[in-house]
């Protein structure tokens, strides 16, 4: 029996918390004890008295706000404050304090770079879990996030140097006994990397030094929704209500022949009802994806790895409307297999109806999705793999 602390520091939405809860449940089933250290405690508040949790040590962002998007993973961390030795020192002390307070035997990190820095310093066994984006392949220099854009190597090296100075300086201040990182890439090096996704949709492409276990959420759970008629095409959309493209998207989907089910997360229930039509159900809460995707022609999504994996698992083609970089990277992978089209961000929103109608009628992506290598692939139990890696 081991005491396993789960850490989540960066990244928004509930995806990280959900994955962590799923893996933690699995570890508890195997007889281990778990606790959580999250940057945002909101999701933990729902667990009540049965769970134990802590605030993840926070790090102050630099005083001057960045003027452009980050170039590399090193720069993502620099933008979050990891280029400042005093911040790293404080953050690391916070993590070391927590490890010893809770007497953790091991750490499971879901996009938790500070926890990983501290775990290496404390020689605490650790495993990374995630969907790929948070554990980029370590390279020297750390590669550009947008491989398709022209970026000078010196800029990448500068970001690496800033990160390295911050992390080394911070660790020196807390008298960490373990070896200091020699390169920025060492900050991203993880002993055990459990990817809750598949190589085909890994944002950085298939890699050998990670173990793919597939998505950990069960697509058959959740509120039920049903196709009402037999008209085709059947379009399922899973999008965020705060996306400014939602209204034109809903207009376009409503005009499609066939039938549509839209989950617009965060939409007011009254608005969802108001936007529904005889051929388009609009939901504001998540629904069980499995039964819907089992008989569906197109899935419209932002490109979250979970939805993408479930759609391809059911052989359903995708029309992807990414909101952020991680989703763009996933979308590019799926597009390269021929099973999806991706909305180009610079296109005017007025083009959306035509683009969606074309996607719904696109035989080529439908055929590629039907033949996807992911079709019918079963996920492995991440908790069992994590336990095995930790020797627990």
């Amino acid at each position, binding site marked *: 029996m081991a005491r396993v602390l789960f850490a989540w520091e960066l990244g928004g939405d509930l995806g990280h918390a959900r994955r962590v809860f799923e893996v933690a449940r699995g570890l508890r089933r195997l007889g281990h004890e778990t606790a959580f250290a999250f940057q945002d*405690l909101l999701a*933990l*508040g729902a667990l009540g*008295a049965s769970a134990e*949790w802590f*605030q993840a040590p926070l790090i102050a962002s630099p005083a001057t706000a960045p003027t452009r998007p980050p170039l590399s993973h090193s720069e993502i961390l620099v933008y979050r404050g990891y280029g400042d030795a*005093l911040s790293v*020192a*404080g953050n690391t002390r916070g993590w070391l304090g927590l490890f010893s*307070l809770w007497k953790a035997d091991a750490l499971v990190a879901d996009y938790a770079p500070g926890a990983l820095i501290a775990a290496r310093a404390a020689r605490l066994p650790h495993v990374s879990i995630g969907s790929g984006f948070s554990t980029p392949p370590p390279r020297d220099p750390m590669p550009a996030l947008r491989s398709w854009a022209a970026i000078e190597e010196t800029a990448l090296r500068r970001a690496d140097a800033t990160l390295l100075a911050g992390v080394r300086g911070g660790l020196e201040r807390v008298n960490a006994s373990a070896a200091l990182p020699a390169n920025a890439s060492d900050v991203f090096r993880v002993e055990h990397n459990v990817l809750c996704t598949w190589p085909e949709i890994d944002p950085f492409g298939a890699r050998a030094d990670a173990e793919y276990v597939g998505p950990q959420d069960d697509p058959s759970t959740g509120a039920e929704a049903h196709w009402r008629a037999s008209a085709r095409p059947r379009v399922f959309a899973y999008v965020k209500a705060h996306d400014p493209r939602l209204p034109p998207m809903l207009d376009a989907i409503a005009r499609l022949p066939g039938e549509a089910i839209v989950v617009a997360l965060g939409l007011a229930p009254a608005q969802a009802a108001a936007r529904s039509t005889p051929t388009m159900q609009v939901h504001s809460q998540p629904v069980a994806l499995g039964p819907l995707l089992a008989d569906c022609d197109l899935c419209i999504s932002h490109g979250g790895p979970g939805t993408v994996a479930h759609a391809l698992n059911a052989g359903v083609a995708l029309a992807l409307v990414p909101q952020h970089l991680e989703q763009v990277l996933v979308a590019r992978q799926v597009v390269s297999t021929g099973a999806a089209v991706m909305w180009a961000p610079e296109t005017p929103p007025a083009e959306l109806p035509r683009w969606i109608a074309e996607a719904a009628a696109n035989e080529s992506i439908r055929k590629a999705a039907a033949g996807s290598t992911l079709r019918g692939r079963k996920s492995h139990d991440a908790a069992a793999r994590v336990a095995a890696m930790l020797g627990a």
Partner: protein
Amino acid sequence: MARIAFAWEMGGEYGHVMSCAALAAGLAAHGHRIAFMFRELRQLSVVPEARDYDVFQAPRCAREGVGADVPAGYVDIMSGCGYSDPRELTGLLGGWRSLMSRWQPDMVVVDFAPTALLAAHSLGLPRVTYGNGFFVPPRSTPLPPFRFDAPIDVGRLARTEQAVLANTNAALVALGAKPLLRLAELFDADEHFICTFPELDHYGNRETSGYWGPRVRFDRGTDVPWPEGTGKKIFVYVKTNLPLLDPLLDHLASTEHRIVAYIPGLDEARRRRFASRKRVVCDRPVRLERFLRDCDLLVSHGGEISTGALMYGVPSLVFPTHYEQYATARRLEQLNVGVWLGPGATADLLPRAFAGVLDPRRVDIARTYARRYAAFSPMEQRRRIVARIEELIQGRGAILSPTSSQGTP
């Protein structure tokens, strides 16, 4: 030897860390074990003695201040820091309870940290509050507003308090703890170290066992001599994000005053432009203990440094940046020992502000105030607070007065 945890949840700047560290040093010197449960951990770099303490991140609302208005009372601050959502508050309270249950303090010293107070209350832990008066409201029902410069919608405040109480109780129940009858219970403690004097209390007078004088630590930093010559001796301690920084420096440069300025992060160009034989720019904090005895005016953002300077008879020109500093500035103004300029002030107001605050009558009042509390000493204050905390830990009933010279063990 006892285990003593310090909790800091809300507010910014270095004052919280510095004050807690000063008190912790006194307790650590008596062999007690210290834990810092702090909102910001970067600032540990300014208190190297914390190397020997246990250090933890304090729970902190991820949506702090979202949609919050200018606060009129304590419940408005709570609302903006997680108390408007029972689930979020359960997350925060659960985080504090885990820290405290695991570390098992014999005493929790609560700086600006209502959720730490709530956690200690729910776990039945001994606790004291330690702050400048703003951090703990008088325990009435409803809690009194602190805003006195604008009309207050009492009904709205009462509704906010009801919502905050309901969410607090939802969080307590979710974690298996007993709900509160009144929100004021959250602020029950074994002792309140209200570290100010009644004239400067943000809430005005309150029922308390005494005022302990401001939390100041002026025995650290570099000794800096005042520049030679004539002219008023003005100490400037502001941040570079002060909107009137350039006009302020230009105005001071146009006078004959002797200036010592500590402006962290001031760029080289500004420094070169401003510095002269009569104007010294320091790059490290200034040791204020002796320095302030000779000072005619403090220019700062306000807060505890300005009330501390007043103990030396030094009036203040204040540029408040948040509500607590503003409330202190208004108190200084009421006492006639300070002038303040808000964030929207324009440069043309500077000459009059300086003339007003350097008016000899104001200086006289400041000196009179200092004489009223001539016996106040920050070191003696801390010694008494340490002694009182030890009394409480040992369960002794004797009440140690903050101000009398009797009763010191």
